[in-house]
């Protein structure tokens, strides 16, 4: 009897394993060339799967079998770096996050140049978005979005405090409104990331500053950055902002906190819309997206906080096919429409921005208070200042995550100037 039970348990667990393994691959049809794909963001995967289906419809002679895999952020980049270094084990196509991208442009670059597939439609792209994934005139990655930084207001809380979000024009207005919200409702105006850089980067970028200058030198401790970090510190010390629960805006703790009406606003790039719809369902109908306040009246109200470059590795079994599929997915008009309707990203091809589909209702216009989210974006399209991506960026961002933000904002054992200077010296 005992032995029978043992065998039964064994069989059951083997069965579970088989089902678990099968579940991941059910989407792939049996025919065609296999294209493997890694991403660190599960929101991205269904987009590629849809585009693969469209590709197979349009190209009966070049069928593909798309096999996507979602890995945790750090793990995926580590695994990719090691497999590219080792020369084996990398996927055909891969999503690489902007902060990690320069790591993959060192030495003999193990990614395939995409110039031949980009050139025919190069003039349709926002070129600054192509430049960030390039080296020596060769483009290695296709962007997902412009990544315009915007601010998301919880109108329910603002209404309770008697604050009109449209009247907030500058950061000084924002601070004043924050104090009013805090006084009337007891709820902080916003949360600041203390273990990541997204609360800081858009603010300095909209003033034309950055972590690196055009030539790739570290300018992290320049006066604008020090002043801006001091501004964030003042915001915390006045109670207008609190450190983000969990440390950053992608933590489970934060999603729960915000979903319960924990803070009245948050500034993040456009691509954060998907996090609202997927992780904060109770805020449906309460969130209004507006351009960020500016530092000076009439100043820039946004910054391009790109995110993901998708590349083809040199290890791809059929490089040309992988490249053709990639440009089809991210460079075609259909693809760019889907980037907006499904992912809620501001697509990198500017020639689709005026298409009717951009104004139609989708799951985002349903969720957010805005009726015409994309119209708001078009209004600020000339104010989306870019950032410099260079070899030093991963090291700088690591220091921001590990020391600068936490020392200057949460623990306050260093002044903003000291914290920024130390990190600058470490990375220069």
């Amino acid at each position: 009897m005992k032995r029978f039970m043992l065998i039964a348990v064994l069989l059951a667990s083997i069965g579970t394993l088989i089902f678990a393994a099968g579940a991941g691959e059910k989407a792939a049809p049996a025919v065609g060339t296999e294209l493997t794909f890694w991403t660190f963001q599960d929101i991205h995967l269904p987009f590629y799967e849809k585009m693969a289906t469209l590709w197979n419809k349009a190209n009966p002679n070049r069928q593909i079998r798309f096999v996507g895999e979602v890995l945790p952020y750090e793990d995926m980049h580590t695994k990719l770096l090691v497999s590219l270094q080792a020369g084996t084990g990398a996927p055909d196509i891969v999503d690489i996050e902007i902060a990690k991208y320069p790591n993959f442009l060192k030495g003999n670059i193990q990614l395939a140049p995409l110039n031949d597939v980009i050139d025919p439609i190069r003039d349709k792209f926002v070129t600054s978005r192509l430049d960030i994934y390039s080296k020596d005139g060769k483009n290695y990655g296709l962007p997902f979005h412009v990544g315009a930084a915007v601010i998301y207001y919880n109108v329910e809380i603002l209404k309770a405090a008697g604050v009109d979000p449209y009247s907030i024009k500058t950061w000084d207005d924002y601070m004043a409104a924050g104090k009013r919200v805090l006084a009337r409702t007891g709820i902080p105006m916003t949360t600041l990331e203390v273990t990541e850089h997204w609360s800081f980067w858009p603010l300095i970028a909209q003033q034309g500053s950055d972590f690196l200058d055009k030539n790739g030198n570290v300018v992290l401790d320049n006066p604008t950055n020090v002043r801006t970090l001091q501004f964030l510190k003042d915001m915390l010390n006045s109670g207008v902002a609190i450190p983000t629960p969990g440390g950053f805006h992608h933590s489970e703790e934060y999603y729960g906190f915000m979903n319960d009406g924990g803070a009245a606003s948050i500034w993040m790039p456009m691509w954060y819309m998907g996090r609202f719809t997927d992780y904060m369902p109770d805020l449906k109908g309460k969130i209004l997206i507006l351009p960020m306040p500016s530092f000076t009246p009439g100043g820039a109200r946004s910054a391009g906080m790109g995110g993901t470059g998708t590349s083809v590795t040199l290890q791809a079994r059929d490089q040309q096919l992988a490249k053709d599929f990639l440009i089809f997915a991210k460079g075609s008009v259909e693809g760019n429409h889907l980037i907006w309707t499904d992912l809620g990203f501001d697509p990198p091809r500017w020639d689709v921005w005026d298409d009717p589909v951009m104004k139609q209702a989708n799951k985002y216009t349903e969720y957010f208070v805005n009726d015409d989210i994309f119209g708001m974006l078009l209004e600020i399209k000339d104010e989306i200042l870019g950032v410099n991506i260079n070899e030093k960026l991963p090291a700088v961002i690591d220091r921001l995550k590990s020391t600068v933000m936490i020392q200057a904002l949460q623990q306050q054992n260093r002044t903003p100037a000291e914290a920024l200077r130390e990190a600058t010296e470490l990375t220069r």
Partner: protein
Amino acid sequence: MLTKSKLNAFKIAPYVFILPFILSFLIFYLYPIINTLIMSFQQVYPGQVEFIGMKNYQKLNNPEFKVAVKNSLRYTVYTIALLIPIPLLLAVLLNTGKRHYNTLYRSILYIPSLVSIVVAGTVMRLLFASSSRSVVNTVVGVLGVQPRQWLLAGPHQAMILLLILALWRWVGVNIIYFLSGLQNIPDELYEAADIDGASTLQKLWRVTIPLLKPTTIFVTTISIFGGFAMFEESFILWAGKPSPNNVGLTIVGHLYNKGFQEGEMGMASTIGIVLLIIVFFLSISFLKIFGFFKDEGKR
């Protein structure tokens, strides 16, 4: 007959027996160590490898590496301070008393070491999550303490969390070592001590602890290795992100960051070599101080 005598003459048999070890040592230890040593003088990028002399070693003179060394050293000292006396006393307790209960307690204390660090670290992270609804915050809330962001709270709390994790995981293993050491102490010594009228405490101090010295030296040595090799715990506890203010940055963590996050394999090799040297000297001098080699020599 001829072959047999030949075998004996050349004494091939012993070499055959140690061959598996020698081979695996050469392939999996010596070759990588030599290669790492070479790489520590190189800048290693995909397809581009060049010698850069001592530059990697010079770059080690930075605050981050110092923080890493300090953290590793502190962690090692604290784990030894906790993971020697506590398991020793528990082992002594488990060696007396009723056999039936002892087996139960032994199993309970041993089970944590079977849990993967990744699982344990993730559970720990969720227990101490900064949400006001996390388990620990709920418990301390009942006691009237404000909810806290435990994992972001600073170096002391971070170290305490790491030590709790280490203690929970390794006490059971060390108990096993000490129990086997206790079993080697002859009962006659205790009987003699009883006849001399020694108290329980005196027996512990005068008989048990001195006779457990070889076990204690062994456990301390592996704790030095374990302490300096610590990486997964802090990596998982902060979900793979850099720990706030580098409170959880260890030497191996620094190696990982350089090699796998920044793609500087040469620099990572340098850190590995320095770690090897540190651990080698620490354990050799520890063994020397406690007379480990002297004992061996006498025999």
